[in-house]
């Protein structure tokens, strides 16, 4: 019983790493295309995260169910089923996006649909076949949160610098950098924020390690 609880905790914690330490975009470099070009306003960022969640979570869950199929079914057939699911999930995502903001689809253009073919599920779906459905669901949620955080941070930064606004509301910024909304600035912004994240993670690791060392010292002194 104790062991089971421990493993549950361990699993929960392991997937939580996806939010910062193993962030799918910043650290692993998956699903970069929408994060780089699509995210130049916060609205776009919200839209992208929404589609990402609506596509990735079901696909990962379905993939874990596909793991229960007999071994005779080849891997490529399973991937194809996942792709079909992803494509079908675009329809409700589109409807939902239209409900939130009518012009969201137009401002995202191609990148709205490109999210359906994001590399996160292409890489993770085969690995999710060995997982139980609830863990696949949890992983999908964590991936979505990680992706959303990245996209929201990048898009907020870019919108603020490019248009001097935040989610459409004007803020205090006397100088605007219109070029930050362009594709090249997207690359640079994602790169620099990734470096900042890595720097923070390294720093926090150092801090945690030093705290642990200190605790050990006290314990041995006692």
């Amino acid at each position, binding site marked *: 019983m104790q062991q089971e609880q421990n493993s549950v905790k361990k699993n929960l914690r392991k997937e939580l790493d996806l939010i910062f330490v193993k962030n799918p975009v910043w650290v692993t470099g998956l699903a*970069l295309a929408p994060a780089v070009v699509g995210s130049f306003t916060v609205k776009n960022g919200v839209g992208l995260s929404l589609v990402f969640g609506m596509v990735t979570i079901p696909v990962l869950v379905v993939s874990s169910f596909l793991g229960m199929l007999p071994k005779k079914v*080849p891997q*490529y057939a399973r991937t194809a089923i996942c792709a079909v699911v992803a494509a079908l999930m675009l*329809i409700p995502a589109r409807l939902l996006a239209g409900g939130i903001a009518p012009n969201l689809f137009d401002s995202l253009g191609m990148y*709205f649909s490109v999210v359906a073919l994001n590399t996160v599920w292409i890489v993770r779906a085969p690995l999710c076949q060995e997982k139980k459905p609830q863990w696949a669901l949890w992983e999908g949620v964590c991936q979505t949160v990680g992706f959303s955080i990245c996209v929201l941070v990048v898009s907020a930064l870019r919108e603020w610098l490019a248009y001097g606004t935040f989610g459409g509301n004007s803020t205090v910024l006397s100088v605007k950098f219109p070029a930050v909304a362009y594709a090249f600035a997207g*690359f*640079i912004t994602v*790169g620099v924020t990734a470096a900042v994240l*890595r720097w923070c993670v390294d720093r926090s690791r150092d801090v945690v390690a030093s705290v642990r060392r200190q605790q050990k010292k006290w314990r041995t002194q006692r």
Partner: protein
Amino acid sequence: MNNTLIGIFSLLLTALVLQNAVFSRALDITSLLVLPGGRKGLRQFGLILTGITTAAALFAALLNPLISQWENVQYLRPVVYVLILTLLYGIVCFLLNWKKRDWFHDHSMLLTMAFFNCAAYGAMALTVYSGFHWLESTVYGLGIGLSFLLAVFLLEQGRRCMSICNIPKAFRGLPAELVYVGLISLSLYGLVGHQLAA
């Protein structure tokens, strides 16, 4: 005849440089940056991708007149495209699994990444947005694939150059490469000007 040739050539150049799939649209940047297998793997991937984008663009152009009469076509178009890709993927995998089992076993992940990919989808979507007929869209699809190969070539130079740079620890690897690609994109900006990525 001459005019069509010139038109096709200029279209190819446009797809290669002016609307480079990687530098101005960031399509497929993930496979460019994180695909394992080194230089050789990336080149192989680029070749496979070129074939796929060409075929996908051709199919999209052929299917476009059929589906454009549907109701709510803008809802269904992406779905149809992904389904076409899936179908192509299934057929190719089946054939390869049947005929060249060993090769397929080694390269199945590469193939999956190349099929379910922004570039393949982008080739289909962009040809339809631009209203090309089938020859033009095939050339455009080829151009997208070739532009990925061009990006592979440029990034190879960048990786070599960065291998002797004393890059700060936080930037090493992915972030520095992203900034590098961004600066190449900036240099191409002088050629393109600002065009909204469709």
